[in-house]
């Protein structure tokens, strides 16, 4: 409140910089006119057109203007704040201006690009946007970034290929690891596999190496037969409550978490006549091959069994490779066995798998396409198939049918999702923050994911995701302290009446009720600045820094003045 008073007496000195972006902006709207217009706006003491505001010369010009003209607000009209705001903010900061007194408008994407054919209107719109930014800038307040300490330890949930790889990576980076595995033993699905395609190495060999490496590391603490029961705290300062192998509750402080609980291959009695004996799944075939004895002379494999249909619409991606791998090993053990793979389309992505497919064909493995509208029928002795191209029915007598069933989400994944407050998709796989930009992050800060719990993955993928997640953790924990944006909510303790309206609207659980003072308060580290609380609070007691009523309304009123 004291700051507010002071501000009223401070003379407003806004500097506006209009970027030509070469011809990117100036080619399609009149930057000179926009600059001249900006100079007439209330509070503006300096307006300048730059060829490239983000160039060294441009930045220098901003910094000199701040000093020379005693600017206390800076507005840049150029390209996307997503890419350039940090640069400009930091430049202001090094020139002695609080970075939160900077405002940016995007006249490239929103004016020159979308209205390329209409110079006059593009120019007018740029003026409107600049007017709005200047109006808002007038009400901006200086802010301090929020700092909090970090615990340089990491919790890894799940000790399969992905979890072990993450633990290995983290440990090598010098971070302490707490690995929590539900099973009595580490290793996950790989434990029961025969060979690992595409290289074709022994699964046990590959796994032993990894387990040995991880368990011999002094900075890795392993809990087996254990489970995460609850999680308190927030990024940098989580506390895991673990139920260990003896049923005791153990508390472990960690700064970040990696979730790698894998998925399970579907086994569904009756699916294509599945009986576990003559009709089995690929997973059930693996131990048979591992034993090294194979008698069946006629094998039919059916792809997409239980996948890509009404119940489960997704493609499990790895089953085609598994089928081809297992078919090839059958051929090795029993060269005269006849193998047919009935498929919809073969997902053999990547050069190595593509090569596998060619080799399999060369070895005499037969591939038959089927139409999902007429799926193969498994009879007592033969599989009946309608060939879509010829439209005729044929039968393949069999000794063994192998179903390539999808990996499905673990049933207990939803429990974990609630406990961690992270989302799942409609199939029960964990949902990353962004499929392309943040594939290994959860939206919740400091929690990452890897392996088949995210989406069916091969060993190589699970491993690289585990290592990738470890690297993501590094971006947080290799700093001295956690610095988060000051653009978070605040609650005025004087006016709050503790109605808890805000509390129930906060998607991030950042608001709590203070029983003592009978008011609500914001945890600044958990707050993501979404503004739900501010929009709900009837008395404006909850507000979002940088987006207070005054700051928003000034902008809205400015657009109407045009």
């Amino acid at each position, binding site marked *: 409140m004291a700051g507010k008073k002071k501000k009223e007496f401070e003379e407003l000195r806004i500097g506006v910089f209009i970027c030509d972006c070469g011809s990117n902006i100036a080619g399609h709207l009149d930057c000179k006119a926009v600059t001249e217009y900006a100079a007439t706006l209330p509070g503006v003491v300096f307006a300048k057109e730059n060829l490239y505001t983000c160039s060294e010369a441009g930045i220098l010009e901003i910094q000199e203007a701040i000093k020379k003209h005693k600017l206390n607000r800076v507005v840049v009209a150029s390209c996307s704040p997503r890419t350039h705001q940090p640069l400009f903010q930091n430049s202001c900061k090094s020139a002695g201006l609080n970075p939160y007194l900077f405002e940016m408008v995007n006249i490239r994407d929103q004016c020159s690009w979308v209205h390329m054919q209409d110079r006059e209107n593009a120019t007018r719109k740029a003026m409107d946007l600049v007017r709005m930014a200047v109006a808002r800038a007038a009400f901006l307040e200086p802010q301090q970034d929020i700092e909090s300490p970090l615990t340089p330890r990491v919790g890894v949930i799940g000790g399969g290929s992905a979890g072990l790889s993450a633990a290995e990576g983290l440990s090598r980076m010098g971070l302490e690891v707490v690995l929590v595995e539900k099973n009595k033993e580490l290793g996950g699905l790989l434990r029961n596999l025969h060979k690992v395609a595409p290289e074709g190495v022994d699964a046990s060999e590959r796994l032993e190496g990894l387990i040995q490496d991880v368990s011999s590391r002094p900075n890795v603490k392993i809990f087996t037969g254990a489970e995460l029961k609850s999680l308190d705290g927030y990024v940098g300062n989580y506390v895991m409550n673990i139920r260990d192998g003896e049923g005791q509750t153990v508390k472990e402080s960690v700064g970040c978490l990696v979730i790698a609980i894998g998925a399970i291959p579907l086994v569904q009695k009756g699916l294509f006549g599945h009986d576990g004996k003559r009709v089995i799944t690929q997973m059930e075939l693996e131990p048979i091959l591992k034993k090294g004895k194979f008698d069946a002379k006629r094998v039919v494999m059916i792809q997409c069994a239980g996948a890509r249909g009404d119940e489960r619409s997704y493609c499990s991606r790895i089953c085609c490779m598994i089928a081809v791998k297992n078919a090839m090993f059958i051929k090795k053990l029993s060269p005269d066995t006849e193998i047919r793979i009935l498929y919809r389309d073969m997902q053999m992505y990547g050069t190595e798998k593509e090569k596998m497919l060619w080799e399999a064909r060369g070895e005499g493995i037969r591939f038959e396409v089927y139409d999902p509208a007429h799926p193969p029928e498994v009879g007592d002795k033969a599989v009946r198939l309608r060939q879509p191209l010829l439209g005729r029915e044929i039968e393949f007598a069999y000794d063994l049918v192998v179903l390539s069933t999808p990996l499905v989400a673990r049933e207990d994944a939803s429990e974990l999702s609630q406990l961690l407050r992270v989302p799942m998709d409609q199939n029960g796989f964990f949902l990353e923050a962004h499929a392309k930009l943040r594939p290994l992050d959860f939206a919740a800060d400091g929690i990452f994911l890897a392996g088949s719990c995210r989406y069916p993955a091969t060993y190589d993928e699970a491993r690289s995701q585990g290592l990738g997640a470890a690297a993501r953790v590094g971006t947080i924990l290799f700093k001295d302290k956690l610095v988060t944006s000051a653009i978070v909510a605040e609650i005025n303790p004087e006016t709050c009446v503790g109605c808890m309206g805000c509390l129930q609207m906060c998607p991030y659980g950042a608001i709590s*009720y203070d029983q003592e003072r009978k008011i609500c308060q914001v945890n600044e580290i958990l707050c993501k600045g979404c503004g739900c609380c501010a929009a709900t609070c009837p*008395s404006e*007691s909850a507000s979002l820094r940088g987006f207070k009523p005054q700051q928003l309304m000034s902008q809205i009123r400015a657009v109407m003045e045009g």
Partner: protein
Amino acid sequence: MIEKVIERVKELLEGGEIKGFVGLCNKNGHTAPYLFTEVAELDHLVVGDFQNPGDARYPLNKLLIDLYRAYPEEKFGVLVRGCDERGLNDLYVWNQLTPKNVVAVGIPCPQELADACGCPKPYPDNSVAEPIAEGAEAQDLIRMEALGVKERFTQWMEVFSKCIKCYGCRDICPMCFCKECSLELDELIPRGEMPPEIPIFHLVRAVHMAGRCIDCGLCNEACPVDIPLRTLYKKVGDIVYRKFNYRPGFDKGKSPLNVLENK
């Protein structure tokens, strides 16, 4: 009716169950809210039926909130009609009162009042007597809805423009419990404009009351220029009920408008 109320309050005061009773007091021909702490004072207790039933109604719950803030450990009794009891329920929901600090002493309203109010439930559950009237339809709302959009606009703007920004509607509302009010926020409702920016002023309040208004009609009674505010707020309640299946004071928890759920 009043005898039964007095009898009950006497019992509560004598038994030491409540520290005081928030009711209406008639002295020297005036009726006003009053905190009764002695049995001897109860001769002056009235239910507010002056010339007509319910023509002296006050937001007693609002006084109760102040008492609760000042004496969070004490228990008080309060006189309630159907709407006041809805108010209590909703104030519990909004954490402004707790049931353990409140004893409601209810009275049912006569049909005449229920009809005038268009009241859905003219009797409280905690009552000294059986209901004597049935729920009534909101005639004013039905009439307004039957008009065309243009006609409605003209009518509302005409009445809104009479507003003198006295804040009477807010001050009397038992569900307005904020310490600072958006209607006095300069950025939203510029100071010194008369009438206030319409219909913004009235709609801002209507939005704030969504999921909270318990339809007591006190705002309407308080308005010195007779803006049919109750009709507006009945519509607010009607939208919340039809779109979100929630009625403040009847249903559990906050309204779906005030709760974030994941669907």
